[in-house]
């Protein structure tokens, strides 16, 4: 099925519906799919990123930098997000395969992209609070909705990965948090190395 036919068939709407109503049904649907990486999942993560960009732009002081942020910045952000999600999917796949489950990094990547869907709802929420001209409430809404979206994303991901691999919830949790911790450690180490290199460079000037 081509991308256009896929769009017209509204199969992607079924994925989103399952995403909201029943994550385990989503796992069944994604397992039945012929493709490993669903193109519609890439659109979902893009929309989520776009929504977060716009929400932050609405709340932060606006300058002409917005045009760079929403064009080059969005593209760069999307590339970084996709790369991070891909690394995340590979790490989760590694954990599953290590524990004797099938894994399937492509499908985990699709599920990861879809799991960002709740972040899309941050924008309407911010607009509503912003329109009543009460900025602290909008910031609070952004924080609360952001945390709620993150919690739902983790819950969704754990449920889907558990169902896809017929694994226990604990195993799925380990598969989700291991890459998170590993990536966090990698980021911190990179940061420390960068600071060290920068410090050494400045000292030797």
């Amino acid at each position: 099925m081509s991308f256009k036919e896929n769009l017209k068939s509204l199969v992607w709407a079924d994925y989103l519906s399952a995403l909201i109503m029943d994550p385990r049904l989503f796992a069944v649907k994604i397992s039945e799919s012929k493709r490993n990486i669903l193109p519609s999942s890439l659109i979902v993560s893009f929309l989520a990123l776009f929504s977060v960009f716009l929400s932050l732009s609405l709340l932060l002081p606006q300058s002409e930098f917005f045009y760079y942020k929403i064009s080059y910045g969005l593209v760069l952000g999307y590339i970084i997000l996709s790369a991070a999600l891909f690394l995340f999917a590979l790490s989760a796949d590694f954990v599953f395969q290590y524990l004797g489950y099938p894994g399937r990094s492509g499908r985990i990547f699709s599920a990861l992209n879809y799991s960002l869907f709740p972040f899309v709802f941050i924008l309407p929420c911010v607009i509503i609070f912003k329109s009543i001209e009460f900025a602290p409430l909008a910031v609070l809404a952004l924080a609360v909705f952001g945390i709620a979206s993150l919690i739902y994303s983790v819950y969704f991901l754990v449920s889907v990965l558990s169902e896809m691999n017929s694994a226990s919830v604990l195993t799925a949790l380990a598969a989700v948090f291991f890459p998170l911790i590993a990536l966090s450690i990698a980021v911190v180490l990179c940061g420390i190395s960068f600071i060290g290199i920068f410090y050494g460079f400045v000292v030797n000037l």
Partner: protein
Amino acid sequence: MDKNRKILVAILVFLLMSMVLSLVQINTSMQRKTSASSANISISASAGVGVVRVSGVISSGTEGHFASMSMHEAVIARIDQLAADDKIKAVVLRVDSPGGTVAATQEIFQKLMELRQKKPLVVSMGDMAASGGYYISSAANHIVANQGTMTGSIGVIIAAPNFKGLFEKLGIKMNVIKSGKYKDILSSSRELSDEEKALLQDLIDNCYGQFIKDISLGRNMPIDDFKQYADGRVFTGSRGVEMKLVDSVGTFQDAVKKAKELAKLPSDAPLYDESSSALDVLFGGMGSFFGKNPLGSVTENNGLIEYRYVP
């Protein structure tokens, strides 16, 4: 399409709309900042002519959910901006208005009279500069109208619908408790009494007196010279010249040329026009779809005293 899919498509449409709305909001906010900074830039730029635009009904009320200030406040803010800018040596006021409410019109007139003390002011009349539109135009040093511009309509009007017959047919009765006998003057549920008519006529005559006095002041001509035409009649720009209520026939460019001439500016001096916001562009045209009263001019005035041309 099953129910779940329909709901999801509706949610997605809502999300996309919110994205478009936020983009427009950010863009508008930045346009305001850009126009403010360009106004500052113009201080360091070369001397030129500033433009103020008065389009539509002059009113002190905000229209629409997106308006942050009323039309007359925006015009006054623009006049103040141009008055304070040292590089603006002359101002062209572009009028395309059938007039509007009394106080808003008079406030703009007063501001323009103050501006005229500092810088030459030339009016360019568009399709219409009638009633209150002419009132504010009269504050200029020079009025340029197109040949076919509808102008004049010097007068005051108050109108309110009388639904008494309709109410009787429908069996609707109004319960009115009032502190004085004139408190519900111009009520739409009853006829106007002779006393009330006299009272309103006095009010209208008073506002009319202020109108012609200000025209006389602005145009620097005795009231008797134009009072014969100040009976609410509308006339074209070319007839206005004959009546001495307009100085010359010409286009907006002619008005700019005249302003440069009065300010002794070179012909290539820049023109500092105001920019309209993205919201104006996006939602401005929707007014005719959502904002118009279906009963038209019969109820549009609704008891407001106006310097306004009502065909």
